[in-house]
């Protein structure tokens, strides 16, 4: 057995919750995060004082795990506030699986919270990049716009190809009562929206919302006794090539090309086995890049792959079934919501948007400027 597959299925999600999605006036980031933890523990029927592993990252806490532990009155045996941007929480799942399997901890909580929308708008976690800042990139959008420009140049893609991603996400959002924006959207509306940073217009960009999320992970023996259907972490892998967009070797090829194959190898499954695919869609270009880099289609074929509603409700591959960062929720660091949608689909609790027989669900996180990439694969008991 390889080192990788030793961890396969050794952590299970037994509780998951969101809180304050959309607008949560009058509530601060810590309070929203604590509410999500309360709800996730209630979902798992595990008391707060049994949490001995705590993982958190936000845009407003320099030491998020300690801030959250202080608010909750916890004294964890292991904690990590490792921040690799929006993908942090998927990396925390890998950390938690290692800490659970080693026996250091028994109950892990991963949490995030943000009140950015009601606090006045997008707040970057990032310091200015030393050899870029003078040119005034408006990161993150400048970086993603540069990637989109290169992608369109290399693969003869047009803005309508990117718009297909936004329209599909909105289709799913229409089926999700938790989604912030649910009205139907057309390709024309996306293409005609106000330009922000060419070639990305307003509707190519994620929402700016409030929101918090938390999950509870335990070892599989304990997971069987909980009130919820356990969802197992079958594969997880991370990779990053760069911090600044000017360091990225090829703007059309993300480090998901490294993390994806390793996560699939650990899980023992491939792209064709996935019943739902949840990708961190901060911008429309992300979905195309990740579908390609994770092996759902060849490089440059993403635009053809998503054409004609292929990833929308009723399409061949359900992608971003909550409506994504584009239409459901995006409080600044969206990764934990990606993971929770994969878990909810595997649980079978997604209501109108539930994908029938969703046993294997991929959740892929992205952080920085296409920088950190973390792929996780979640499955029901029958996939173990």
């Amino acid at each position: 057995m390889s080192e990788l597959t030793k961890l396969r299925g050794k952590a299970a999600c037994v509780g998951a919750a969101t809180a304050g999605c959309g607008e949560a006036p009058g509530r601060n980031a810590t309070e929203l995060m604590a509410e999500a933890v309360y709800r996730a523990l209630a979902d798992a029927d595990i008391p707060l004082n049994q949490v001995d592993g705590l993982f958190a990252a936000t845009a407003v806490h320099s030491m998020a795990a300690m801030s959250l532990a202080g608010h909750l009155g916890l004294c964890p045996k292991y904690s990590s506030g490792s921040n690799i941007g929006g993908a942090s929480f998927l990396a925390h799942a890998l950390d938690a699986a290692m800490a659970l399997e080693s026996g250091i901890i028994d109950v892990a909580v991963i949490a995030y919270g943000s009140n950015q929308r009601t606090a006045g708008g997008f707040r970057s976690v990032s310091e200015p990049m030393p050899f870029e800042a003078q040119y005034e990139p408006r990161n993150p959008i400048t970086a993603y716009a540069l990637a989109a420009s290169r992608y369109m140049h290399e693969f003869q893609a047009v803005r309508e190809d990117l718009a297909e991603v936004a329209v599909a996400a909105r289709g799913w959002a229409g089926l999700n009562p938790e989604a912030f924006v649910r009205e139907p959207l057309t390709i024309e509306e996306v293409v005609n929206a106000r330009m922000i940073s060419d070639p990305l217009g307003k509707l190519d960009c994620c929402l700016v919302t409030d929101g918090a999320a938390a999950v509870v992970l335990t070892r599989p023996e304990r997971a069987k006794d909980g009130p919820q259907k356990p969802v197992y972490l079958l594969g997880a892998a991370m990779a990053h090539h760069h911090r600044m967009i000017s360091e990225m070797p090829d703007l059309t090829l993300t480090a998901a090309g490294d993390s994806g194959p390793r996560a699939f190898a650990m899980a023992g499954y491939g792209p064709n086995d996935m019943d739902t695919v949840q990708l961190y869609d901060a911008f429309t270009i992300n979905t195309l890049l990740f579908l390609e880099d994770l092996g759902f289609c060849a490089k440059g074929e993403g635009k053809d792959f998503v054409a004609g509603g292929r990833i929308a409700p009723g399409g061949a591959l359900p992608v971003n079934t909550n409506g994504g960062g584009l239409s459901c929720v995006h409080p600044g660091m969206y990764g934990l919501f990606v993971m929770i949608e994969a878990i909810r689909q595997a649980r079978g609790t997604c209501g109108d948007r539930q994908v029938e027989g969703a046993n294997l669900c991929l959740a892929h996180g992205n952080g920085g400027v296409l920088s950190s990439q973390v792929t996780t694969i979640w499955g029901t008991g029958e996939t173990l």
Partner: protein
Amino acid sequence: MSGYFDGPGPEATFRAHLAEGRFMIQRSASTGLHVFYPRVMMPCSGEADLEWVEASGEGTVYATTVTRRRPEKGGDYNVALIDLAEGPRMMARVTGIDPEAVAIGMKVRAKIDELNGAPAVLFEPV
């Protein structure tokens, strides 16, 4: 005798050159490969033998965007990634033409000009 790591670091040295009107990049003495942005050692391979050389200033637009900004705040401006003839890539702006006219593959040449109160490497179409 001063050692490789003594004195001002790569960023301070780069900026001092720029203030003198020189666009300098680093080259590894042993491998001959060029580096930008300024580093302490060769990325990936780790050689601590970087020396300063004058950049040719020749470049090609690798990726480009127009940052939309209200006219009263200064109007739209270009942000681009430029592949230098020596190999490294850098962020910069292409100026001297409409920001929307900057195209991938366009040949550009560096010039040093003031940007937001400090000297900066900017590029103009050849």
